[in-house]
């Protein structure tokens, strides 16, 4: 597949701060690519560098094979959906959407047709003559999207576009955005700090931390095989086993991580082949609606979180376990090794 964006050795320093630090990245044509990370991890800076709002300290940015590193924003075939939408308050919805075509001197009739088309794509037919201050947050978000899509850019950059919406609307927009992306076939580069959002929408996700990519993988791979403790902790929640505890339980100092839903709470050790069991005491039981989370203090030392689906109508059984002795059991191959401190030792495939 052709490459839409190619970034080599990209750095952006603000004084002493290395917002982006020697980044290499390739984003394929038509891909829904997410950049995920906590605030200050550099993901938004990368987006602004690609858009041309920042000049890199070092490195190159290629768009569709062309070097655009030194080009101003208006000479790059990318469009941005801004976090606060940045809708022109003095223009109507139609004038906002037509803006990109107007400055490119597209004739009036075509401009009108394409604006109507873009407004239909985001389901805002009939809103063309409204003023921005007459719209709700979700509608403004759609205007911002239509205003960018109408230009049919090679790449659409989205800077936490759903951040200001409430949860329900956000979920709806996530699915809708994904559909729009599939329909128009434009490469989407999506910045978010919401791991669930990234997992829901993306083909691939780059997890950012301190100006670098910690891991770049598909959502499934990212969740099932986190490459570092940071990724394991940032994407979903996880239990960490390391050092002597890991040696006692697993027979290897690790470190290992395991997801809460991969652990089982049992009354006694089931002695499963390829299984591991550890005894402990339930300290806390939290009811979360769809699932229940139990916090278990293992006799071996660490505290682990166990999650299980509430497929029964009653969770009394789980709640009654508080302060009871239990056995936490899991399959050996659900453990994810984060690589041994000793480079000679091989990862989890051998122990599994």
């Amino acid at each position: 597949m052709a490459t839409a964006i190619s970034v080599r050795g990209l750095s952006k320093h603000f004084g002493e701060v290395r917002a982006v630090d020697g980044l290499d990245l390739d984003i394929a044509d038509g891909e829904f690519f997410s950049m995920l990370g906590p605030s200050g991890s550099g993901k938004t800076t990368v987006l602004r560098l690609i858009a041309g709002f920042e000049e890199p300290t070092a490195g190159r940015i290629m768009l569709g094979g062309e070097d655009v590193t030194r080009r101003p924003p208006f000479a790059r075939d990318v469009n941005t959906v801004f976090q606060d939408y940045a809708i022109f308050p003095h223009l109507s919805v139609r004038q906002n959407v037509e803006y990109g075509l107007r400055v490119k001197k597209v004739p009036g009739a075509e401009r009108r047709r394409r604006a109507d088309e873009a407004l239909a794509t985001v389901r805002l037919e009939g809103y063309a003559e409204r003023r921005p201050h007459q719209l709700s947050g979700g509608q403004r978000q759609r205007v911002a999207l239509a205003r960018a899509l109408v230009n049919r850019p090679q790449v659409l950059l989205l800077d936490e576009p759903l951040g200001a919406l409430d949860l329900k609307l956000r979920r709806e927009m996530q699915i809708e955005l994904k559909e729009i992306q599939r329909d128009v076939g434009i490469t989407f580069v999506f910045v978010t700090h919401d791991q669930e959002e990234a997992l829901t929408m993306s083909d691939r996700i780059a997890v950012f931390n301190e100006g670098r990519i910690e891991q770049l993988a598909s959502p499934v791979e990212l969740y099932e095989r986190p490459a570092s403790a940071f990724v394991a902790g940032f994407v979903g929640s996880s239990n960490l086993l390391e050092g002597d505890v890991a040696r006692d339980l697993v027979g290897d100092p690790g470190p290992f991580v395991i997801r809460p839903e991969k652990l089982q709470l049992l009354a006694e050790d089931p002695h499963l082949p390829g299984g591991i069991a550890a005894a402990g005491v339930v300290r806390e039981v939290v009811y979360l609606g769809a699932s229940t989370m139990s916090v278990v203090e293992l006799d071996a030392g660490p505290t682990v979180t166990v999650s299980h689906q509430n497929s029964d109508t009653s969770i009394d059984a789980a709640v009654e376990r508080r302060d009871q002795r239990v056995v936490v059991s899991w399959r050996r191959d659900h453990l994810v090794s984060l690589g041994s401190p000793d480079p000679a030792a091989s990862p989890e495939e051998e122990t599994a």
Partner: protein
Amino acid sequence: MGRPSSTSMAMSRGLRRSLAGFTAVVLAVVYIPLLLVLVNSFNSDNTFGWPPPRFTLHWWKVAAESTGAREALFTSIQVALVATAIALVLGTLAAMGLRRTRFFGRNVVSLLIILPIALPGIVTGLAFQNGFRTILGIQLSIWTIVIAHATFCIVTVFNNVQARFQRLGTNLEQASMDLGAGRWTTFRLVTFPMLRSALLAGGLLSFGLSFDEIVVTTFTASPQDQTLPIWILQNLFRPNQAPIVNVVAAVLVLASAVPIYLAQRLSGSTAEGLTGAR
């Protein structure tokens, strides 16, 4: 956010009454003398004896025929218009220049631009007279008044535009460039429309400042170029001109109310439009 209303709820009846009383007194102190000027312009007694024996339109007729007053008015308008035009261009450019770059000494430059409005007029006036006549060897004229006025008129425009820039941020302009508009197109289609009401407010203030300036004008005007305030000052103590001065003053009071009213209306409505859009 409910705080302002809760304080007014908490205000006691007595406090509210005494505040109303204070307000009435302050307004009376300001506006009764102005009203007096207006009434006296119709006073038939040319020494303004009180109460007026009769009312007459005579002084208004005399004033309308006074070439001195008319020429002075015309000069003042000319000076204020040109000084404001210069201030609008230079003030906006200065605010834009200081906004985009973050260079060493930025605050110093900003201070230097604002300073002329705080300097005593007599100092600025003397300095300009020296500068024009001794150093540059230029004859004083209407243009020397314009230049001197522009130095403090710039400040009102600069301040208004800078405040607007601060409130707007750079996002809208970035969005414009992102959509393919170059720098000039972005200024024309986005920046300027967003600045319009700030420019109007700054321009009106600047016009007002220039129009009633007297100290700096005294030092930078040639004897032939009389602005209205200087004409008033010179004719105030001539017994047969005093009634005309009164009429001119009355006209000025009425005329200055109009732009202030307009400015208030405009800034109110655009502020609403802008905050609604955010």
